[in-house]
């Protein structure tokens, strides 16, 4: 167990170092930072001074160590395009992305779980068939197309919901939330549904498959034979046992939600980190790209680490298997 945790931790650190190396090379070799910062008018002496001050004359390894040290402290330099510290830019846009990701995650989990249980229990109903067919279409539609279609239906034709932006936001210290105003909540609906739809169908299909499997198990038959109510059997016994894989998959999907937020944010002009990243790719704003690269890698590595470790906490069978197979 301990060896496994250590190996996983080491792997995570290696991944982060590789990502940091890529992001540093981007910094170091794309364009000339000195001319970007000083412009055309600077003298050779000025350039040399800045070069020295930025540490650009140091050996590569020293520069890389320096980059990692500053990155750990949250310093990624200044955006070429917006002329603001990258960390401030990202922090000011992070709440928007996190709110969007959280709401769509909750939407995906609750609705996916509910529909999954329903389609598993009423396997032959016409509504279940309709839901399953609809989910197939939902899986094959690209995210951006779902967003565009939702805008068309609900913003253009029906005019029920806004199609872009966050609506009114409220300042809570450094966290600007859109959850406290009616227009903020209305603006959140379409992006959250767009972002969560794919994950929802995934969770729904998973819950359904797991439920069907569990419902065939002997202990369920036994519970029915004991005369327990359907409700107690379905939810107390069956659902509880399907939750372990469902929660792990949902956890892993959290990273995907943050990644796909790039697409959703662009479709709905949502002022989040993903939209910032897309702009930085278009304008080759290297510091922002580098910072986002490190940030998203960190999110994924942490989520995967937590999920992997949770396996061991939640499911004792895995511990036994791994121990028997490994040693």
């Amino acid at each position, binding site marked *: 167990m301990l060896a496994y945790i250590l190996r996983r931790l080491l792997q995570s650190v290696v991944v982060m170092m590789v990502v940091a190396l890529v992001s540093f090379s*981007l910094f170091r070799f794309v364009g000339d930072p000195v001319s970007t910062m000083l412009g055309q008018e600077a003298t050779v002496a000025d350039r040399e001074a800045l070069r020295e001050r930025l540490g650009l004359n140091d050996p590569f390894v020293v520069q890389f160590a320096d980059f990692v040290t500053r990155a750990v402290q949250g310093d990624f330099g200044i955006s070429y395009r917006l002329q603001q510290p990258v960390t401030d830019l990202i922090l000011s846009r992070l709440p928007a992305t996190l709110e969007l990701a959280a709401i769509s995650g909750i939407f995906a989990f609750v609705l996916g779980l509910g529909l999954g249980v329903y389609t598993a229990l009423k396997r032959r109903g016409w509504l279940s068939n309709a839901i399953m067919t609809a989910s197939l279409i939902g899986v094959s539609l690209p995210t951006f197309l779902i967003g565009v279609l939702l805008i068309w239906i609900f913003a253009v034709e029906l005019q029920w919901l806004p199609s872009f932006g966050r609506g009114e936001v409220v300042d809570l210290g450094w966290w600007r939330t859109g959850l406290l105003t009616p227009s903020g909540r209305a603006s959140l609906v379409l992006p959250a549904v767009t972002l969560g739809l794919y994950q929802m169908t995934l969770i729904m299909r998973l819950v359904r498959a797991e439920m069907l499997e569990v419902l065939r198990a002997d202990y369920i038959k036994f519970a029915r034979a004991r005369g327990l109510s359907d409700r107690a059997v379905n939810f107390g016994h069956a659902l509880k046992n399907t939750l372990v894989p469902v929660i792990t998959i949902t956890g892993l999907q959290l*990273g995907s939600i943050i990644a796909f937020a790039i697409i959703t944010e662009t479709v709905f002009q949502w002022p989040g980190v993903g939209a910032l990243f897309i702009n930085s790719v278009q304008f080759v704003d290297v510091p922002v790209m580098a910072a986002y690269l490190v940030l998203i890698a960190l999110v994924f590595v942490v989520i995967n680490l937590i999920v992997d470790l949770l396996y061991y906490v939640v499911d004792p069978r895995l511990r036994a298997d791994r121990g028997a197979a490994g040693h």
Partner: protein
Amino acid sequence: MARTDHETAAASTPRPPGRLYRAWDSDLAHAFRTSPVALVAGIVAVVIILAAALAPWIAPHDPFDPGSLVLMDGFTPPMTENEFTGNFYLLGTDDQGRDVFSAILYGARLSLFVGFSAVLFAMVLGVTLGLIAGYRGGWVDSLLMRIADVQLTFPSILIALLIFGVARGFIPPGYREAMAIWVLIVAIGLSDWVQYARVVRGATMVEKSKEYVQAARVIGAHPAKILARHILPNVMGPVLVIGTIGLALAIIAEATLSFLGVGVPPTQPSLGTLIRIGQGFLFSGEWWILLFPALALLALALSVNLLGDWLRDALNPRLR
């Protein structure tokens, strides 16, 4: 039953059946002919691919020749004649009088080109690395598989986006537009090689302990020759399945990146770019500029996807 009949018939006639007849009579072709889903998906895919490939000859207009555009034709609705010029457009025109149907044909051409090239790139890279990893084993194998593990934890669209961004950073500004398509192909290809490598590695590990490989080794064949001539043909089945599904994924990835404005340059719109442009006209009521490219993308991705699913079931002996 039908198969044995054919075989006896073939045996009784002196002339051996031709190559074409054998292809038509094969299990795979039979499975294809008897599956309605595969037939429809196949026809749709072939029609779109042919139409895209022949775009310069069958498109009624050249959408990217500014000289041929008639501004008066702008915003002509589909299936109607323009109220000023009387010109007829099957799927309508955009703001500059560009024929949507022709734009879709050219856009699908670009989408398919990027999709096929990206899949080919991913396939060659993945199969080569998979063969080497499976045959050599040892540290090469563990290194490649660790990289694959790490890459699999990230969604492939994110990887493609990051590779595209990083590569764009390294290319001098003057070449960025010209190189965009190639960068896009490499980015999508690199985001998708893992599938091939893992499958081929597994199959190679099974094949390499078989007698024909050992025999080839004993007579002193070079490892590269063993891999290419003996092992490769035996591991290609699953690769084709992954490739077909991968084509659908690559087309969607390309459309997504182009929709985000980081894919192909705006001067050469793909289906994703057309959808991006069409989105801007939704609010003013010109729905056809969005709808038809979206439908074309959907039909293309869905039909290729269904073909891939069918191929997987047809080639998998356990499911037959």
